């Protein structure tokens, strides 16, 4: 199978980064910055913090490029690095705020409800609208309303599709706790998005 232009561009970027060519980092931002920014914004929800996450991600990419072996696509690797930087930034923010821990304090009791996941406007969208871009907005809004410990596991596992082991390592959660939290987050999303699902009947 022949490589696409994008894959060739990425291969050249990787080679230049490994040769410590800093202009390749600038080029990486030009090519992949919009996606990295999207990931960073999802974690941080504001432009200023998202910029810090992107900067941290760029440092990580620069420092870790030697360990990138090309087993996964370079783009996936970049987004994973960005997602990890986002998670680290959230943890740092929590430490500063002395607020709810991302790791331990969320209830992972299967039967406890997730209280705060309500879409502000629960009127069902017309089917035509629901099947187009509007649906994406509803999905993103629902994820955004998840309590942070739940939002983080959804972003890492279901959005970024990191392997379970990596999510466990990144969040410090045990496997049962991670599974429980992910499951409860999905159920909460299902509840919130039920009006927009195909063939819905509850």
């Amino acid at each position, binding site marked *: 199978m022949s490589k696409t232009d994008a894959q060739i561009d990425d291969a050249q970027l990787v080679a230049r980064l490994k040769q410590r060519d*800093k202009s390749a980092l600038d080029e990486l931002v030009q090519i992949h910055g*919009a996606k990295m920014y*999207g990931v960073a914004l999802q974690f941080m929800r504001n432009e200023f913090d998202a910029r810090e996450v992107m900067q941290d991600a760029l*440092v990580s990419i620069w420092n870790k490029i030697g360990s990138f072996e090309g087993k996964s696509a370079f783009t996936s690797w970049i987004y994973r690095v960005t997602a990890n930087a986002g998670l680290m930034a959230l943890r740092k923010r929590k430490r500063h705020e002395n607020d709810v821990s991302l790791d331990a304090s969320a209830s992972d009791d299967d039967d406890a409800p997730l209280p705060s996941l309500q879409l502000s406007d629960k009127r069902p969208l017309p089917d035509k609208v629901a099947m187009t871009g509007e649906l994406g907005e509803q999905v993103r809004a629902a994820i955004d309303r998840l309590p942070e410990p739940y939002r983080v596991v959804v972003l890492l596992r279901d959005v970024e599709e990191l392997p379970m082991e990596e999510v466990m390592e990144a969040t410090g959660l045990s496997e049962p706790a991670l599974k429980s939290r992910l499951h409860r987050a*999905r159920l909460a999303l299902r509840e919130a*998005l039920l009006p927009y*699902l195909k063939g819905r009947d509850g």
Partner: protein
Amino acid sequence: MSKKKISKLFKCLLHPAECWRTKKLLYEYVESELDQDTQRRLEEHLGDCPSCLQYVKSYRQIIELTHKHCLPETPMPPALKQKLREFIEQNPDLK
């Protein structure tokens, strides 16, 4: 309530223990973590119970939608591009 819905509810009432079990095993089923016997039994139930089948489908849909709609490219504001360029040029960690 439509006849179809009443029929589905009635079917579900026939095997409440299996419906409860399906919901309990939903995560493991969708993640393909069940042993063969348990999976077969659950799938037999799904064949009989439209309500549980719909429940499983909607759970899968949520996972798909989450992935599909949550990797948005977000155009960077020009000021951010500039800041990142300066960061790359000046940051001592990037040597």
